[in-house]
């Protein structure tokens, strides 16, 4: 087909020096004289013949159906549609014979026509700078200058496979980098000039750095920070008037931000992370999802973003071996069961969504779509998500998405309703080009025949699918013999063969012939082995009986299905536990206050707070006359303490605890990568932990911002983070930051010595002060400018907002606190000198294993210490670490805590506290404060946690024994009055896990398919993070 329409490109002048192609529109000029820039080799085709489709079931929109309708198509467009349309004389008629016609599907997530993304080469050496030359931005993962339309090439195989799933148009982009440039909306024909509908249709983003060879970012939080900084840089570049650089990446990004914005994610929580960025910059992203959205549906709904959802439902595992089946986690099993209900749940929750073919084989697409409908998705919503919704999202619903006059003739012809299990995709029409998958015109030759060979009659029955039939010839004598007849049907031509011996005919018979009279009569010749030709004829006696088996209203409809649990891992619950009013009686209370330890005492929890405590609680004094329902817990013989607080933890962090690729990564924040689904949260609750500071690692001198969370198992990341807590940042010293133990290739990133570490701090902090000054000057200048001047000259040149320096400045101004990973006394002293000279205070030295050598200096400076009870000898710099460290620090008046840095030890922090008694004789009450009140003080949270005091958060643990004893077990752990760990309930949860796994495994065993060819079990393991964990891939 010739391109007949005029491509109008509008060039818009953005700046005096920026010319950017912003918009491509196809105009459908209603002229008879088709024009093209392309010369024609031969005579010109005029495309004057239209096509009229008749007798079709036209599903014009998700909810509308024209039965037995007609549609007129010309030059790849729909000219008319209705029950009966007026057709011109020059018109070819296609009888659809009742076939169903749907608008072709639109896939918003595709890489059709794009070059392959190169894999990132692993290298031992660091790559700090950009490797490609050009006037682009500094980071290779930011590539908004990439336009899919410029590189797009028709790929036949890929187009075919997309069409097999009913897709007629795709939004295609290059899946490379964090900012990926723009996508193009492309129809799946073979003529690029005709198929390219919108050259810059949307801008695309992700958290994956793709082929970038640069080290930064090496973590999810780094990717987030990089993207945020890029958006701020853009503002500065466009409006700051201060840029001395020309940056084509930022220029391209500026243009791209006017388009729909689509963010590719890797898991459900990524949607929330991307949305947070969107909120910061007043952008609304649509998300490419992963089919697990149902696991956090309320939070995802709240993003108000549209989700592009794949339907590549997980395949069943081969679970015949119970010992291997054990390796499959509960979430994998449950996801296998629940994934097909994802779309239904999204629909029910009112989350807007489109369906993508991403990661789905064309073999499975329709069956998966139908499975989604069987799981509750409405048919209208399914069609909408494939047609109108994506068209509207891209604002191309004037071109695509429904069967309407003036739209592209992109439609699918199906043998029956899309949602019938037997319905087949027959044809996909794309802008008038047709791809035929099943020949609709093939004659249905099935039926009962009398076959006459050389005068003898044999009954012949022809069965199978239209186009793929086979026959059976019978010889009826004393006993009936049946032999198979292989039939190849090509149009009206037939060729067949059968073994003749059984029929009493010689050798193998070869038939050739033709079908006549609408398949009533076949005739032709056959050849015997001796070379003789004979004629044969078959006459139909009867059409195939309607063999449609009445599918019994199957019980499948009422599928037994487990519930969604929060979080979606083992020990999650269908229901969130609730805060109660609780009176704990007969307990030994460790108050951590002046009252000390109170024996045989009571504690009242109400509305998440400690409402009263003492020998006897006077309920009337608390509640007056309206005493609420109170759960009474008899804690006779038990000890009740404040919840344990872990000052140094690396649990519940997604994809990287270190952004150690630069000496300072102050711009990154763990708050952005909290993982609410980490089983270690639950395990630590079992050890009485209620609050943890999730720290950046120690790979660089200035690490990242930390997240302080309450271990509210089941809650979302945002609900766990204490947003109003004092902000912290991780610093680090010593062997990790100078990369001493990372192998001999890591000798390039500054600093490599303790000497260099000091200079990093001075350099960064001095830069922060200069940055502050630049802003002060700017703001002063603004104040001095008169309104008239402003009007005339505009805003003066503004400094660049720098996320890293903002954070460092907060430190200098006492608005953010440092917790510094530290071992040796020299460097501890050095950092205190740096702080003193710059006028701020180090809040906490964490690890601080040689703190005992400089405890006096720490006290003087005002720093606290959060140390290990007894770790040492793992690195050279911990050669002098001693278990008496905590005792000496405490004796010297330093606020002292014990921390974990380890998911295992964190659940035994009470025992670690006991080691302060063992090594150095700290009194028991004081030792217990090492893991409760003291870390609360270090975190500036002692006003709300760390002790049992009226008005504080009801973060409370009931222990079976003296809490410092190895024999003590946490029986119940409350956070804000909600019981998140209950030793008894835990047993019920174990049973639930066991029975739920067994139930789904049974179901999996009986699922369709040969068990031997199902997925082999594999186990998901956790990355156990420590300070020095560096990821190869985040």
């Amino acid at each position: 087909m010739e391109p007949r329409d005029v491509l109008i490109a509008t060039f818009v002048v953005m700046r005096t020096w920026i010319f950017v192609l912003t918009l491509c529109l196809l105009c459908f000029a209603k002229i008879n004289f088709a024009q093209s820039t392309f010369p024609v080799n031969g005579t010109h085709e005029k495309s004057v013949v239209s096509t009229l489709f008749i007798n079709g079931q036209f599903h014009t929109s998700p909810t509308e159906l024209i039965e037995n309708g007609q549609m007129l198509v010309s030059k790849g467009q729909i000219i008319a549609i209705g029950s009966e349309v007026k057709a011109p004389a020059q018109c070819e008629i296609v009888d659809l014979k009742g076939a169903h016609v749907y608008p072709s599907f639109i896939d918003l997530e595709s890489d059709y026509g794009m070059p392959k993304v190169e894999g990132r080469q692993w290298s031992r050496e660091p790559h700090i700078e950009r490797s490609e030359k050009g006037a682009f931005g500094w980071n290779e993962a930011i590539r908004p200058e990439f336009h899919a339309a410029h590189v797009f090439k028709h790929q036949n195989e890929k187009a075919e496979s997309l069409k097999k799933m009913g897709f007629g148009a795709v939004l295609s982009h290059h899946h490379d980098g964090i900012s990926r440039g723009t996508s193009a909306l492309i129809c799946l024909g073979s003529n690029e000039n005709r198929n390219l509908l919108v050259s810059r249709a949307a801008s695309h983003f992700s958290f994956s750095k793709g082929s970038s060879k640069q080290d930064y970012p090496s973590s999810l939080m780094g990717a987030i920070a990089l993207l945020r900084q890029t958006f701020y840089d853009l503002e500065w570049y466009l409006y700051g008037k201060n840029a001395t650089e020309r940056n084509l990446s930022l220029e391209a990004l500026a243009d791209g931000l006017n388009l729909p914005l689509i963010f590719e994610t890797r898991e459900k929580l990524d949607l929330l992370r991307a949305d947070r960025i969107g909120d910061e910059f007043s952008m609304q992203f649509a998300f490419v999802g992963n089919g697990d959205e149902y696991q956090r549906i309320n939070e995802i709904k709240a993003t108000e973003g549209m989700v592009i959802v794949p339907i590549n439902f997980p395949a069943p595992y081969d679970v015949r071996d119970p010992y291997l089946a054990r390796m499959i986690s509960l979430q994998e099993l449950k996801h296998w069961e629940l994934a097909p209900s994802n779309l239904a749940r999204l629909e029910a929750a009112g989350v807007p969504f489109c369906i993508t073919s991403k990661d789905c084989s064309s073999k499975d697409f329709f069956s998966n779509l139908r499975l989604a409908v069987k799981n509750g998705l409405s048919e209208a919503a399914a069609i909408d998500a494939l047609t109108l919704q994506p068209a509207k999202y891209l604002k191309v619903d004037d071109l695509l998405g429904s069967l309407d006059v003036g739209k592209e003739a992109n439609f699918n012809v199906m043998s029956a309703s899309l949602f019938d299990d037997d319905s087949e995709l027959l044809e996909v029409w794309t802008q008038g080009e047709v791809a035929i998958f099943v020949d609709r015109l093939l004659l249905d030759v099935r039926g009962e025949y009398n076959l006459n060979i050389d005068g003898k009659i044999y009954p012949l029955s022809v069965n199978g699918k239209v186009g793929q039939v086979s026959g059976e010839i019978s010889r009826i004598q004393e006993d009936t013999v049946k032999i198979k007849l292989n039939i190849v049907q090509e149009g009206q031509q037939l060729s067949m063969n059968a073994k003749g011996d059984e029929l009493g005919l010689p050798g193998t018979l070869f038939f050739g012939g033709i079908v006549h009279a609408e398949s009533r009569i076949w005739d032709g010749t056959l050849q015997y082995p001796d070379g003789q030709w004979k004629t044969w004829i078959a006459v139909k006696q009867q059409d195939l009986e309607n063999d449609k088996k009445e599918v019994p209203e199957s019980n499948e409809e009422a599928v037994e299905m487990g519930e969604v649990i929060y979080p979606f891992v083992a020990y999650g619950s269908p229901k969130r536990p609730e805060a109660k009013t609780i009176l704990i009686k007969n307990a030994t209370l460790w108050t951590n206050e002046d009252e000390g330890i109170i024996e045989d005492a009571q504690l009242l929890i109400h509305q998440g707070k400690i409402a009263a405590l003492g020998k006897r609680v006077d309920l009337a004094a608390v509640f007056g006359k309206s005493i609420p329902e109170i759960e009474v817990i008899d804690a006779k013989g038990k000890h009740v303490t404040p919840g344990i607080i872990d000052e140094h933890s690396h649990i519940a962090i997604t994809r990287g605890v270190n952004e150690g690729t630069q000496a300072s990564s102050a711009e990154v924040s763990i708050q952005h990568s909290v993982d609410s689904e980490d089983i270690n949260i639950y395990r630590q609750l079992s050890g009485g932990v209620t609050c943890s500071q999730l720290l950046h690692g120690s790979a660089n001198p200035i690490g990242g911002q930390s997240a302080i969370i309450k271990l509210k198992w089941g809650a979302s990341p945002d609900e766990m983070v204490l947003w109003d807590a004092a902000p912290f940042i991780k610093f680090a010293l010593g062997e990790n930051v100078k990369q001493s133990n990372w192998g001999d290739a890591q000798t390039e990133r500054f600093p490599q010595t303790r000497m260099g570490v000091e200079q990093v701090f001075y350099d960064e902090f001095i830069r922060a002060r200069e940055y502050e000054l630049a802003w002060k000057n700017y703001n002063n200048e603004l104040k001095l400018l008169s309104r008239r001047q402003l009007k005339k000259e505009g805003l003066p040149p503004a400094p660049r907002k720098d996320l890293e320096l903002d954070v460092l400045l907060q430190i200098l101004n006492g608005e953010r606190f440092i917790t510094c990973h530290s071992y040796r006394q020299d460097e501890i002293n050095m950092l205190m000198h740096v702080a003193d000279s710059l006028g701020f205070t180090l809040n906490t030295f964490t690890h601080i294993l040689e703190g005992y050598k400089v405890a006096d200096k720490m006290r003087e400076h005002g720093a606290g210490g959060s140390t290990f009870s007894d770790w040492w000898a793992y690195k050279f710099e911990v050669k002098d670490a001693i278990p008496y460290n905590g005792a000496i620090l405490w004796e010297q008046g330093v606020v002292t805590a014990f921390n974990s840095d380890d998911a295992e030890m964190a659940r035994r922090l009470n025992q670690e506290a006991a080691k302060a008694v063992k090594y150095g004789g700290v009194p028991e009450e004081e030792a217990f404060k090492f893991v409760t009140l003291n870390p609360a003080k270090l975190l500036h949270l002692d006003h709300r946690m760390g002790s049992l005091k009226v008005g504080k958060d009801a973060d409370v643990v009931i222990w079976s024994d003296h809490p410092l004893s190895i024999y003590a077990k946490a029986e119940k752990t409350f956070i804000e009055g909600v019981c998140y760990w209950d030793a008894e309930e835990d047993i019920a949860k174990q049973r639930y896990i066991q029975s739920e796994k067994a139930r789904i495994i049974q179901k999996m065993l009986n699922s369709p398919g040969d068990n031997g060819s199902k997925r082999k079990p594999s186990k998901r393991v956790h990355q156990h993070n420590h300070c020095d964990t560096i990821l190869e891939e985040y």
Partner: protein
Amino acid sequence: MKHYSIQLLILLFCSGFVFAQDQVSPGAKHEGKTLLLGGTAHLGNGDVIQDAAIGYENGVITFVGSSLKAKSADYDEVIDTKGKHIYPGFITANSTLGLQEIGAVRATRDQYEIGTFRPNVRAIIAFNTESDITPTVRSNGVLIGQITPRGGVISGSSGIAQFDAWNWEDAAMEMTDGVHMNWPRMHHLHTQQGKPVIELRKTYEQQLHEIQRFFRESKAYSKGNGAIKDLKYEAMRGLFDGELCLYVHANDYKQLVEAVQLKRDFEIPRMCIVGGYDSWMAADLLRDNKVSVMLYRTHELPDYDEDDVNLPYKLPKLLSDEGVLFCLQNSGDMEQMGTRNLPFYAGTAVAYGLTYEQAVMSITLNAAKILGIDDRVGSLEVGKQATIVVSDGDALDMRTNNIVFACITGRVIDLDNRHKLLYRKYRSKYQ
């Protein structure tokens, strides 16, 4: 006859060393007769004696019983242990103490030789008696260790050391007690979409064939006279006549089943599973085949999300209920320095179901039995070595563990260490 209080003993031993030296010297040979009088004696064999007396002569236990029955007058020295807890010296099985000093410093790591099958490398001759770590372990009550190589499929041979010696030669209680084998992993770890995943290994069967071949060849060799020596096969010889134990490091149920099959196929008299996370699932099989277990580190996270969060704590009880011979061990992250927490693993086992005396057994007599040294150590019984620790309080609880006296074959151990020295040094800075 001299009467000592423990405090006096400590004073005697510490005073000379303040600021003097990092290292403490081995104790002098025990001569004469000593009586520990009073206190609770946990014999290590499951029995406990309240108000006990333990007597020993020239390093060998001569009396175990009630203090009422002990005749103080017969002894050259009587040490008052009233109110204290007396235990056999704790034994750390599957240990790399003395083989590695500082984890991050390659030059100090001696546990990993290269090669796949190397039963001939011997850990005991690399045991560094000058390690700064060992004294910090002793002072929590751990006096004996099985020094074990790591890595490969057959890592090498372990030996048994007592922790108060001038050199490996006088430390060695057994030069070799067994051969260590890492059962090949059935699964391997890789990342899938950024998430770590364990998958079945394709090469597992192949590795199994190689192992079986090595054992076939070793067994065939063992039938000859060794006129031409092959060091590897020579080192395997003792496995087939029961002189050495085959220690199989394995955790998964299927590995355990296959290891037991290997024992049967090659008629290996002594086998012990090291790790054995799934050993409770295979308890019948292990017990019936007389396979013992050195258990997965007690203070460890469960292997599966779905597992009981306290499963590692409960493993000792599970095995004990099934009558499988087991002891505790400590391999894993930072295992050398963490050895001093071995008694607390036993404490955790008590919290999760084991009786107190069973827990003591799991780091004393049971370990000695598995290591084949129970004729000498592991319990407080007449005729055994006077290898004893005395704690002020319950030694299995960090809250009360305070070792005030320890001896190996009666030789009194200096309980000082680098940590106490630095403690004293810097406390003096602040006085």
